[in-house]
Structures are given as structure tokens and as C-alpha cells.
């Protein structure tokens, strides 16, 4: 016991590792060892250490606050969040929420958040589709397909995202023709220097029935799947779920559309003197950011997917084969559920990365959170600390929410081991 106590003298310098745990556990038993010099007691040592660190940290913070206060007074600047309720008085080129120059700063904050979420959401969906396709393609036994996928991944992920954004924005979209010489795209769309103009769907009220029919069809597909599995488990009869699902999903809304006589009109963009009228305008900043984020993140998602599928050992495929499971069942019942456990956590962090990377939109003028709030609003109000803190708080919230969801997911799917 004495030896252990002596060992502990070394044991708890600044950081207690796993070893400390172990040794303290030994030490906590009934001991008749003579009392050592108080500083050799690991508990006291730990407390002293933490107090010292805390004191250093607090004095550092006090020092910074003092400096900042002095600097701000010298520059005649005030602090506080009161500016959030003042009129912003600047324009934002692209908003989902109503915005005028008379709007106030916290509305600008919300506009920034929604613009960030908009590009992040669309980007995540697109990058997932592209990334899964390319990840699976990399594993293809077809030499050309797997080579193309490999070239894509190795090229894209080794070039900075900002450079790719610049490329899309300055080298591609900015060199599009002026409005009057717009290129015509299929489906009555146009592309020019101001971005892409697409027709705007103008459904009449009757069209709501079609949406309802679609929801019903989706519910029916889930019900069908449940019923098919139940039937398989009771009678052993199989049923072509996939084909039936597709038919239901297409036919039901189509029939309702025809029967209800709902009308879906499109407002087609029309070239006027200087600009297009009608339709939806997708500005080049938005498009460049979306392309860049999607293409860049897809290369990382592809690697995640490939790793996940490869992580399921070949023995699993063989075991499933030797049980006589067919390829489709093998994937659905054995491989995919295991691969998904490996894929989902890094996939989520890629989603988070995409959201964080959307802040690079600031460099090409897309009005997302950093651009609107840490850029324009900060410059106009001079409230640097407040603006940057609020911006960081938003990203921190995204991150904490995601990791909470992930923890829940991991706890749910983690393999039970001894």
C-alpha cells in the first residue's frame, strides 16, 4: 500500500489519466499507511491544480475584459444588444422572409439563418444523392465506372472549397451572357449573368387534392410493406413490394389529378426590356454556393459510403449466401443495416460540415448568416463582439442539436457486446 501511495505522488500532476483512476481506486481502501506530506495526497494535489488553473483563467479573462473595455471607450463605441431593434437600412439581395430597408437587425439575423438553412438543406439532399451514387460506383466491378468515381473523389476533395466556389462563380456563372442574350434551357428556363430563371408553379386550390392523394399513397406504401412482411411471416408468400409501391405512388395522385380536374399552371419567365418578369430567379451566388457545396461534400460522402460498405466483412455476405438468401434480400436484411451503422455518424458530421462550409458563401456574396450578420450588420453597427457571438451561437446550436440526435441514434443502434 505504501508503494501505491508513493506512486501516487507522481500520479496526479496536472492531468489524471486512466492510470490515476486505477491508482486512486487502490488508495481508497482502508489504509493504515502513515500520513504522507499533504501535497503527495492525490486528492489535494488535484484540487490545488484545478484552483491554480481556474485562477489563471479567470485573471486572463478579467485582463481581456479590461483591455476590451478600455479599447472600446477609446474608440467611443458602446456595447449591448439594443441594436437588434434598430432599423437596418441595407438591402439583402436574396431572401425567403419579407425584407425591406426598414426592417430591423434581428430580422436580418433571421434572414441570414434561413438563407443558411435553405442552401444547407438543398445541398445536403443533393450531396447525399450524388455522394451515395459515387460511393457505390467506386465499389463497382466495372473498371470504367469505378475509375471515373475514383477520379472524381480524388480531384474534388483535394481542391479547397473556396477555390471551387470562385471557379463556379467567377469563371462559370459570371461569364454567362447578359440578360438579353440568355441561353434557353429546357422547360422554359433561361440562364444568364443574373442566374437561372425557372417557371413558377401556380397550382389552383383544387390541386390540394393531389397533394392529399400523394400523402395517402405514401401511407399506403408503408402499410403495404407492413402487410407484406406480416404475410411473409405467417404464410411464407412473397409479394413484389417495390413494383407495387411505384405504381401506387404514381397512379393514385395521377388519377386524383384527372378526376378532380385540378389545374397546374406555370408562370413562365418572360424577357422584358432589361430583365425577366415572372418565374423564379435563382441568383448566381446561390447557384455557385449550391454547386460548390454539393460537389465538394459529395466527394466526402462517397468516401464515407465506400468505407461503410467495405466495413461489413465479406464473411457476412458469404454467411447470407450460404443460407440461400437472394441478392436483394442479402442487401436489405444483412448488408445495408450493418453498413448504415458505420455510415450514419460520419455522414451526419459531413452534413454539419456542409452547413458550416455554407459560410463561405460570404466570399461570393450569398447573403447567408456570416455575410449578413458578421459582415454587413457588424460593419454598420460596429458591435463586433455581439455580432460574432450571435453568429457563433447559431452554429453551436446546430452542432449541439446534431450531436444530441447522434447520441440518441448511436445508443439505439449500437451492437450489444460482452
Amino acid at each position: 500500500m505504501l508503494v501505491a501511495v508513493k506512486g501516487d505522488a507522481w500520479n496526479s500532476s496536472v492531468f489524471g489519466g486512466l492510470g490515476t483512476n486505477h491508482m486512486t481506486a487502490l488508495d481508497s481502501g482502508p489504509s493504515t499507511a502513515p500520513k504522507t506530506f499533504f501535497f503527495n495526497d492525490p486528492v489535494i494535489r488535484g484540487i490545488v491544480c484545478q484552483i491554480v488553473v481556474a485562477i489563471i483563467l479567470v485573471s486572463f479573462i478579467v485582463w481581456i475584459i479590461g483591455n476590451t473595455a478600455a479599447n472600446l471607450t477609446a474608440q467611443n463605441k458602446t456595447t449591448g444588444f439594443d441594436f437588434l431593434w434598430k432599423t437596418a437600412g441595407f438591402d439583402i439581395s436574396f431572401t425567403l422572409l419579407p425584407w425591406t430597408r426598414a426592417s430591423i437587425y434581428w430580422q436580418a439575423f433571421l434572414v441570414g439563418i434561413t438563407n443558411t438553412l435553405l442552401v444547407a438543406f438543398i445541398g445536403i439532399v443533393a450531396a447525399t444523392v450524388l455522394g451515395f451514387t459515387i460511393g457505390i460506383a467506386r465499389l463497382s466491378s466495372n473498371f470504367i465506372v469505378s475509375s471515373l468515381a475514383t477520379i472524381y473523389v480524388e480531384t474534388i476533395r483535394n481542391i479547397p472549397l473556396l477555390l471551387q466556389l470562385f471557379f463556379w462563380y467567377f469563371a462559370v456563372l459570371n461569364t454567362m451572357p447578359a440578360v438579353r442574350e440568355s441561353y434557353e434551357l429546357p422547360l422554359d428556363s433561361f440562364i444568364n449573368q443574373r442566374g437561372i430563371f425557372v417557371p413558377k408553379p401556380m397550382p389552383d386550390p383544387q390541386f390540394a387534392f393531389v397533394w392529399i392523394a400523394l400523402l395517402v399513397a405514401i401511407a399506403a406504401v408503408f402499410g403495404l410493406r407492413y402487410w407484406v412482411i406480416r404475410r411473409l411471416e405467417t404464410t411464407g408468400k412473397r409479394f413484389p413490394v417495390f413494383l407495387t409501391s411505384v405504381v401506387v405512388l404514381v397512379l393514385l395522385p395521377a388519377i386524383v389529378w384527372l378526376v378532380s380536374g385540378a389545374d397546374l399552371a406555370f408562370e413562365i419567365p418572360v424577357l422584358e426590356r432589361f430583365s425577366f418578369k415572372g418565374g423564379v430567379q435563382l441568383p448566381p451566388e446561390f447557384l455557385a454556393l449550391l454547386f460548390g457545396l454539393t460537389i465538394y461534400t459529395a466527394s466526402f460522402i462517397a468516401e464515407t459510403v465506400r468505407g461503410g460498405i467495405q466495413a461489413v466483412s465479406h464473411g457476412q455476405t458469404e454467411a447470407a449466401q450460404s443460407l440461400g438468401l437472394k441478392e436483394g434480400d442479402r442487401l436489405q436484411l444483412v448488408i445495408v443495416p450493418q453498413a448504415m451503422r458505420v455510415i450514419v455518424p460520419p455522414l451526419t458530421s459531413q452534413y454539419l460540415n456542409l452547413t458550416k462550409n455554407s459560410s463561405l458563401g460570404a466570399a461570393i456574396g450569398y447573403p447567408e448568416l456570416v455575410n449578413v450578420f458578421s459582415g454587413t450588420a457588424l460593419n454598420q453597427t460596429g458591435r463586433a463582439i455581439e455580432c460574432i457571438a450571435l453568429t457563433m451561437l447559431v452554429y453551436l446550436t446546430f452542432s449541439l442539436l446534431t450531436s444530441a440526435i447522434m447520441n440518441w441514434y448511436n445508443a439505439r443502434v449500437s451492437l450489444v457486446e460482452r
Partner: protein
Amino acid sequence: MTNIGFVRSELIPAKPAPNRISGPMAWVQKNLFATPMDAVLTVFGMLFLLWIVPPLFNFVIGQAVGPSGTVEECRAVDAGACWAYIYNEMKFFIYGFFDIAEQWRPNIVFALGALLFVPLLIPKVPFKRVNAILFLLVYPAVSYILLAGGVFGLLEMPTQKWGGLLITLIISVVGITLSFPLGIVLALGRQSTLPVIKTLCVAFIELIRAVPLITILFMASIMLPLFMPQGTTMDKLLRALVGVTLFTSAYMAEVVRGGLQAIPRGQYEAGASLGLGYSQRMYFIILPQALKHVIPGIVNNFISLFKDTSLVYIVGMKDLLEAVKTKNDSALEWQSSNTATTGYLFAAMVFWIFCFSMSRYSIFMERRLNTGHKR
């Protein structure tokens, strides 16, 4: 019962495999046309290559204007990439505004760096410890004196004049070197049993990892000067370095933590049973093993950092990408429809070469470590 005994009298020698499983035809059959679906994919893949490769080749090489070309050639209707522009502006892309007469100084820094850094990467080269000390302690001092000047009769060269690839390399190398020890301290702190220290480390790591680098750089650029005592002016390069280092150290901490967790408990216990204290155990037993495990992770961090240096334009530094962008926008004498594309293509190639070779190196180390681990 029939006699089932059987003894082979003569061994069968190996025969060559039938043609359909080896040889070029078998390869084509297996890799390109194994199933009807494969055949369709192969045809589509070929069509895609036919569609994309010729124009790409024409742009980059076929119809490109070589280094000795003129701007008029670049402005021709069917001209490809304008390499003459890159060739003429190359010095700016590498050194920024560094005085042309003094550019031998960064050249020495580049050469010295390569000389000291390359042997560090090759596992077989001896004297790693001396090499590392030279690279980490002596080299930065020598480089700083050479680049900044002002002593030994060297012309003073303020950091605002540094730029281009020089800045990209400085920020990434300094950033990774400083964030490494900081990351180790944070990782150890995160595993601590002392609640105050653990909480601080976790909070720092998670906060930094939650926010985009761009906001950290905003902070370094705008808030850092506010935090300093009145009258102190902070060099822009220094601000960028502080931001980048803090950012990278949080990621580095997570990499190191992975390595620490991979070390079996028995190692800690064996160290303790020998009577080694905490810091001795860490220094002699745990960290050497853990860090070796995470070399690939560290290299991957370095790749990310190298790409992320392109963001330091926020604090007003002209790194490689920003230098290219500046020239694209401002070099009126080289204005043509392909100038911007060529500029970005050039920058992309430079970044790609660096990042790709690093990622190959990381794979090489991973293989080496894996086999070393198994046997």
C-alpha cells in the same frame, strides 16, 4: 463395404489457367462486360469520356496559349487556357509583393524547408530527433530572420508584402506545428479526472469544432486587437496564425484522443506498476505509441489546414488563391474570356498536387502502421 482407400502415386503439376480467367480478354470480360448491365455502364462511361476528355484536352493543352504566347493569342475566339498569363504573373503567385530583388530569401527558406522536412517524412532516414529539433526550433528562427529582415544588413520586409504560395505554406506549416503540442495538451486534458480541467478542455474543443473557420478568423481579425492592451498593434499574419492554430488544435486534440483510446489499459497499468508517474508514463509509454497510431490522422488534418489557408483573405492576407483572384480581377493587360478560368485552374493544380501527395503519404503510413501492428 467397398474399399474406399485411395493413394495418389503421382502429383499433378500446376497447369496454366484456362484463357477465360486470365489474360487481357478475361480482364475485359470480367471488368467491363461481366453482365448486360455492366456492358451498358461501360458504353455510357466511354461516351462520357468521349464527351469530356477532348474538350478538356483542347482547353488545357491542344488550343492553349503557351508560356511564350501573347495576350492577343489568348483573346482569340477558339483559344484555350492562357498559360502565358500564369507564366508572366508567376512571381506574384509565389511571393506576393515581396521585392523582386529580395526573392532569393524566400527561395532559401523553401529549399531549407524541403531539405529538413523531406527526411522527416521518410521512416528509414536516421537522426529523426536532431532533424526534428532543427526543423521545429532552428528553422523557424532562421526563416523569420531571412524573410522579415531588418538585421544582418537584410532589407526589412514587412509581412504585408509577403504573399502567394509563400503565405499559404507559412500559415499551414506554422499552424500545424503549433497546434500539435496544443492539441496533445487538450486531448490529455479531456481525459483528465479533474472536473475543472476536463470541462475547460471539452468546452474549448467542442466550441471550436462547432463553428466555421471563417467566424474564428473574423474573431481573430476584429476581436483580437480589442483584447490586447491599448496601443498594441497586431500583425495581420499573426492574427491569421492565432486563428488557424486555435482552430486546428481542437481538431488535432480529437485525433490524438483517438490514439490515446487505442492504447490498451494494460499499458497504463504496466507503467504504473513500474512506479512511473503520470507524466513519465505519458511521455515514455503512452504518447509515443498513441502518436504513431495517429500519424495518418495528423496528415489528414494537415491537408484540411492546407486547403483552409485559402480563407485567410478574411484577415487581409494574400495567400495563393487570393493572389490569383487579385490578378484575375485586376491584371487588365491579361483580360480575356479565359483568364479567370486559367488562373483558378492553375491554383487548383497547385493545391491538388500538395494535397494529393500528402493523402498518398497518409495512406502509405497507414499501411506501414497496420502491418507493423499485426505482426
